[in-house]
């Protein structure tokens, strides 16, 4: 859980940096897309390395989900009879919504791939014109809303996830790690949300 989570987090950070190229204009964004597809093309051809990364990502997602399902099944087996009255005392909202939050994020990723990678759900939907695809998306309030919900779900997920992963990997100063995790989650949310909001409010067009 912790190891695959850390790998996914690395992707999340790299992806956020890539998205911020929207602020540098169409050339930067589309050029970045071309660069992504061309990495290592001398060795593996166009999109070769990209496919290696994609497969790695899918493997990590599968491992992450498998671990989550195992934990959920163990939890169910460990409490066959549930409490009639139950009141959580501590467990943060983030901690309690890890399982459903994860499901929401996966569903979002499916929609997101159809939107911005494949293009079939995108209002512009022209391959390679990444900048135009992105700006076409976020002029629509419901697309912006969907992305906002997904990013906030991701923020909650990594807020508990980072701290829990570090604790699983043996860091034992809960207070410090929890604060750092919260800070990082806010950083990720702001970074991701800046793009849809900038487009929606006309700062980037």
């Amino acid at each position, binding site marked *: 859980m912790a190891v695959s989570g850390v790998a996914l987090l690395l992707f999340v950070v790299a992806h956020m940096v890539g998205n911020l190229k929207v602020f540098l204009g169409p050339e930067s964004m589309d050029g970045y897309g071309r660069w992504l597809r061309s990495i290592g093309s001398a060795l593996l051809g166009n999109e070769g390395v990209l496919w290696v990364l994609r497969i790695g990502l899918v493997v990590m997602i599968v491992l992450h989900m498998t671990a989550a399902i195992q*934990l959920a099944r163990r939890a169910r087996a460990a409490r066959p009879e549930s409490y009639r*009255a139950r009141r959580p005392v501590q467990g943060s909202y983030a901690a309690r919504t890890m399982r459903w939050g994860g499901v929401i994020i996966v569903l979002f990723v499916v929609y997101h791939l159809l939107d911005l990678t494949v293009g079939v759900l995108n209002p512009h939907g022209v391959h390679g014109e990444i900048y135009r695809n992105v700006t076409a998306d976020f002029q629509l309030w419901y697309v912006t809303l969907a992305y906002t919900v997904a990013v906030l779900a991701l923020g909650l997920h990594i807020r508990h996830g980072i701290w829990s992963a570090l604790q699983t990997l043996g*860091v034992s100063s*809960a207070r410090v790690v929890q604060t750092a995790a919260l800070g990082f989650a806010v950083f990720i949310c702001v970074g991701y949300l800046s793009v849809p909001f900038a487009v929606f409010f006309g700062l980037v067009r």
Partner: protein
Amino acid sequence: MRLTLRIWRQSTKDDGRLVDYRLDDVSEDMSFLEVLDVLNEELILAGDEPVAFDHDCREGICGMCGMMINGVAHGPERATTACQLHMRHFADGATITVEPWRAKPFPVVRDLVVDRSALDRIIEAGGYISAPTGSAPDAHAVAVPKPDADTAFESAACIGCGACVAACPNGSGMLFTAAKITHLGVLPQGQPERDSRVLDMVRAHDDLGFGGCTNTGECTAVCPKGVPLDSIGRLNRDLLRASLRPRR
């Protein structure tokens, strides 16, 4: 105070149900267990079966008296066992739901009494040190730095009541196990068996049917002794290290 106690009654494997009992004259200075005593006297006089519940010291140190009170292990007060919980923390006229700990490894014996011997199985797997017995060694024979002694003591305060398991959404006994690992693992006497202890205790914990820890922190919040969540990080560190090293 007038109270309605909604108590889990169970005598065979699957006849459990919640039953309401009214008490009209409860003093707010009574402890929660004293209220159950009063109820039981009334039940016995009426020829009914008294409510079975575990208790021993009634001073918060033996760990016998665990029960879910209004959905919280040991009730609403922090760092307080059920026997030390006083009725002034409840409103007059309140309905209070009382249930046993619920976890696969803690089968209900009767009413509010569960069998917590699964915790003993975890201890047997490695929660000890091997040392020759005989006369007690001098207290200063082995020097222990004060911060280590404090960390060990925080965890040694665990009374094995099982509240961490009861409160955990995963039904995990990790805080209990981590308390023992920390208690023994930071002291010099615990070093020789440090690796095998963590490996064996965690395996026993998992084999007994406890759930996996996801660091939600419900356990520390209800722990009557305030065993910190940091102890679980320490257990994980020891576990990782022990798994990476060749087993001796």
